[in-house]
């Protein structure tokens, strides 16, 4: 039988929202306080949802030890306590949480083979959340 498993992780990072394709005035209008040149930070909550057949041998969609290990090495070690604007993922794009969703989804999609990646969800704050399923519509 097929089940969906979701795991939550937390990391902290800073960023500044500023687009090189906009003028300074347009950046200020578009991003408001998030355009502060010194940046600011968030405690990001990352939710990773994977799906698959529940193994009769283990009772699991995938072993959490493997998922946690992958996320720790490939995501948290890379993004936690960093300035997102300085990372290669955001050399050409603005580190909005939308783009962060896409970047993290791509890392999982490329490297995590032990279950099907359903979606990535981010809480930037308790009031804002973002979801990305590789461009697919969100299902049930």
């Amino acid at each position, binding site marked *: 039988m*097929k*089940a969906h*498993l979701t*795991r*939550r992780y937390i990391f902290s990072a800073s960023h500044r929202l500023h687009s090189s394709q906009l003028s300074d005035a347009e950046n200020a209008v578009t991003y408001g306080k998030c355009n502060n040149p010194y940046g600011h930070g968030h405690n990001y909550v990352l939710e990773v949802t994977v799906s698959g057949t529940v193994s009769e041998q283990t*009772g*699991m969609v995938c*072993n959490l030890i493997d998922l946690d290990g992958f996320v720790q090495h490939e995501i948290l070690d890379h993004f936690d306590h960093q300035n997102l604007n300085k990372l290669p993922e955001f050399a050409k794009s603005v580190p909005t949480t939308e783009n962060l969703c896409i970047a993290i989804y791509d890392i999982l999609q490329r490297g995590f083979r032990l279950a099907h990646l359903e979606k990535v969800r981010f809480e930037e704050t308790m009031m804002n959340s973002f979801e990305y399923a590789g461009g697919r519509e969100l299902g*049930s």
Partner: protein
Amino acid sequence: MVYLTRKAEFSASHYYHNPQLSAEENLRVFGKCNNPNGHGHNYTLEVTVKGNVDPRSGFVVDLKQLKDVLNREVLDAMDHRFLNKEVPEFLTRIPTTENIAIAVWQRLAPKLNQAQLHRVRVYETPDLFVDFYGEA
């Protein structure tokens, strides 16, 4: 179609062990969860049903009836129990969060007559949950 979710909590102990694997393999696959004396969690359960709103009552489902079924079929059986030893499903299946979600679905689905079961979500901790939609 309107969806309604009812939450419940239960506390239970369990451990993960597959008798077909060696002791070393069990420890490697299940880690700390393999401790035969068990350990426990406060589980949060979310049961989502769906249906059309009854024009007379304005309900998708009688919440009291849903609560009664949930209490009788799931909570009475699992709350404050050692899942491996006291819940029949887990005499043969490992009581992972995945299998608990499936067991809850299988207990509820035949007992709900008004509304249709949409999703069972089981939180083992606030940072780990499983959704089951009845998919084969």
